[in-house]
């Protein structure tokens, strides 16, 4: 421990050359990022009105959630990363225990146990894990000299693997892979050696058939449907055929807001949740999707830029992982709706209807802003 204190007291070059302190720095918020997120959420509400079958109630409920998300963001941004580091192992342990509890006492639907029911409300421990895991891995790795040694890599992988396996057992393959990715991103950003990465890829490729073995029937069905949706056009292939039809028929400029027949006439399933990108593509065309993807690129770019400005490794790694995980959501969602990837239940960040995902994502951006704005931490 003493050596660590010594390390942290080392002054870092260039850190005294800070920007002028503005009004925003007192809020610990990033104005650009807030503005981009606000634009994205507004765009989401605009599309949601159409996707929900022009139901104002949906828009209002979603707006309330977005508001709650922004509040969480602002609050988390105020927390010092030191608190996050101190609590990360304990919260991680609590998360794993909750996941175990889900396994034994959880409630759920459609053959999956995902929730813990407490008097008054119920929640998904796997959602919390999305935030905790990158914190835990970053906490573990950043405390040691970088790039991490082989041993630390193995320990990290175990720390990642534990919640991943538990969530996979629920079963919730999509979420478990996303969580695993958030942990792995921390490792990748930490400068892990390329030969480790290539080795891991080789092992992963070899493990694919094993993954097939542990998959549930419905998961296998999804993969098969992905490979050939036309094999069951009215059953499991219906969703993907209809979403591709919606996207394709939108053309370059779209059928116009509220004018999408696939979405307005209910041919497109889950049009306001996971498949909302198809509504955008149908009604606003390739142009609308381009607009949305530009927003995402700006957010990701800004996020990574912010990450590079973080003075300490822990903050950088956490920030980088949060931003990259955000992108993975975007990619997996659009990829699955357009038929590039098998259907996994991943919402389109900030756009899909649903509270949990928005609050979790906003919390992530809150952490991002926290590590970005609390520069004095290592200076002390």
């Amino acid at each position, binding site marked *: 421990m003493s*050596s660590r204190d010594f390390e942290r007291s080392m002054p870092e070059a260039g850190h005294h050359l800070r920007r002028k302190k503005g009004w925003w720095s007192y809020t610990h918020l990033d104005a650009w990022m807030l503005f981009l997120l606000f634009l994205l959420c507004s765009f989401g509400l605009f599309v949601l009105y159409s996707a929900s079958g022009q139901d104002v109630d949906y828009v209002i409920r979603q707006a309330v959630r977005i508001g709650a998300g922004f509040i969480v963001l602002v609050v988390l941004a105020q927390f010092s990363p030191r608190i996050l580091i101190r609590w990360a192992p304990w919260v991680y342990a609590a998360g794993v225990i909750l996941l175990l509890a889900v396994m034994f006492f959880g409630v759920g639907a459609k053959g999956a146990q995902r929730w813990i029911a407490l008097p008054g409300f119920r929640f998904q421990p796997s959602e919390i894990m999305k935030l905790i895991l990158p914190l835990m891995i970053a906490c573990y790795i950043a405390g040691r000299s*970088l790039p991490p040694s082989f041993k630390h890599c193995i320990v990290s992988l175990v720390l990642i693997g534990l919640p991943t396996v538990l969530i996979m057992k629920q079963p919730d393959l999509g979420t478990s892979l996303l969580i695993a990715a958030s942990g792995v991103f921390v490792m990748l950003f930490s400068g892990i050696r390329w030969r480790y990465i290539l080795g891991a890829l080789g092992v992963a490729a070899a493990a694919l058939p094993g993954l097939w073995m542990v998959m549930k029937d419905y998961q296998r069905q999804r993969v098969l449907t992905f490979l050939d949706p036309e094999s069951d056009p009215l059953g499991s292939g219906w969703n993907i055929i209809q979403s591709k039809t919606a996207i394709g*028929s939108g053309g370059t400029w779209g059928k116009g807001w509220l004018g999408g027949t696939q979405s307005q006439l209910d041919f497109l399933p889950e049009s306001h949740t996971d498949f909302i990108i198809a509504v955008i*593509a149908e009604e606003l065309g*390739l142009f609308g999707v381009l607009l949305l993807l530009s927003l995402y690129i700006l957010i990701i770019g800004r996020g990574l830029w912010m990450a*590079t400005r973080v003075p300490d490794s822990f903050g950088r790694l956490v920030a980088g992982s949060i931003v*990259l995980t955000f992108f993975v959501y975007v990619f997996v969602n659009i990829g699955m709706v*357009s038929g590039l990837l098998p259907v996994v239940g991943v919402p389109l960040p900030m756009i899909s209807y649903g509270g949990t995902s928005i609050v979790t994502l906003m919390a992530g951006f809150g952490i991002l802003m926290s590590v970005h704005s609390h520069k004095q931490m290592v200076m002390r």
Partner: protein
Amino acid sequence: MSQFERLKDHSQESRTFCFRALLAFMVVLLLIGVLLGRLYYLQVMQYDRYAAMSEKNRVQLQPVAPTRGLIYDTNGVLLADNRPSYSVTLLKEEVGKELDATLAELQRIIEISDKDIERFKKRLNQRRRPYETVPVRFRLTEEEIAKLAINYHRLPGIQVEADLIRYYPYGESLVHAMGYVGRINEKELKASDPKAYAGTHYIGKLGVEKFYESILHGSVGMQKVETNARGRVMRVLERTDPIPGKDLQLHIDLKLQQITEKLVQGEKASIVAIDPATGGILALVSTPGYDPNLFVTGISSKDYSALRDSPDLPLFNRALRGRYPPGSTIKPVIGLAAIDSESVPPTHSVWDPGFFTLTKGGRKYRDWKRGGHGKVNMKLAFAQSCDVWFYDAGYRMGVDPMSDYLGRFGFGRVTSLDLPEALAAILPSREWKRRARKLPWYPGDSLNLSIGQGFLLTTPLQLATAATVLANRGKWVQPKLLKGIRDRNEEGKVSINMPEIPNATSYPEDVKLKHPEYWELIVDNMVEVVHGKRGTARKIGLDAQYQIAGKTGTAQVVGIKQDERYDASALSKRFHDHALFLAFAPADKPRIALAVIVENGGGGSSTAAPLARKVMDAYLLGIDPNAEQDVALGVAHE
């Protein structure tokens, strides 16, 4: 361990991170490029394909069934109507896997029998296109509709639909004359133009409804509709209205039909009355009948087996398909054949000892009257229906002239225009017997034929047709129900025009006699049957206000079958004779010709002739016999 770790190099860590973050951003851009490429492929390159698929999803072409033409009687009384009826229907696409649960739930709400479910499933399998609703039960009551309405929200895919359904207000009175419509089945669908019947659920199954199907049906309309994913119609985009079927007017006189039906109520009987001027069928009765309304939406198997297994055979159309030995009613034609073929002179007379033998001491062909009629001329032979005179005449002319003349009166073939169920029955001849029985024609067969027994079988319609030809003195008019297509122009004026009927049944040429003066001779003899002092039907002639020409008949029965050899001793007494009567009136200017058959009714003169008189009274004088029924019964059983 930690003591041996390398020192943290913060700037190196920062550089590594920056490098990897840049790398990550490149990968992000690359993957977004992949997504954009995919979307470009779908939205630009494959646009036409997906636009077409989306359009196919959204737009459905739906057939719109035309309204079926109505049927009126000769006076414009509505005989076949279309009435709104509500049925509960199911849309399979919306119900999905919950089919059985939904049906069970429906059964809890309204009365639906297991048979209904069975038939519903059959219809479901015969569905012609996706998103077509299938009826579960028809003819919902107001209460049932209300019960379903409050449960709608729990039953996705269930709907109450209004439809026009054929309704026959006079039920069983007209079923044998008009037939009925029923739900179209797979076989009929295959036989008809699938496009024309795309929206139609009903088709004529029997009678006029079947024969004039193409006129009554109309032409299908089409509408382009926008539907949602559950098949619910959101908007009509384009519509071509269907052309309703044309209305028909029949020759049937409902009032006469009802009076006639009432006369033979409770009997197994048939009466057919024809207007000799047009061939129009004024009344066509076959009792017992049945309610055609039961068949329109599908009869329950319980009702159907009750009808099918009834010993009175209500489903059997006696007027068109009942094959009866005509007995003595055939004698006017036989008599005409005998004198016109010059086999016997009109003045021919025979000694009737009560029987006739072909050879001395051979088989005795009995007269109906024990002891015989003594010396009999043609006039008396008609009046008294003397069998021996006709045996003698039949023997003298042989089978060929008899077959020939009977054929010219329409026996042994279908001559009617629009009665698709009509049977040809049997007109025996030498060739017929050789073909059907593999036996030569024996002289004894000729004797049987001459008094309307033996192989000859006729339907009531054929007898009425023969009466019509006799009434017209040989001039043929084709028996038919249709008076014409009923059109109403803008001013509301009704016009009735006979349509062109392709492949219409042919009918014989007019009967031309070598001696046309014989017509009046035969008619006079037939008048003698009713109005003569010794006429078998003299009772009905007593107080008649017009002259009737008729001929009674009493046919011996062995079921309806014919044994090869007719053996009286084998006859059980419980087989009563069929009573027959054939007539037209007024004799000089006939306005009605008819045939009456009462199965097991006893004698033609006692049972059938009084019925005929009442039908003629009703038609010619407008007397409703039901008003004075007591008197009428008195006459019948005097």
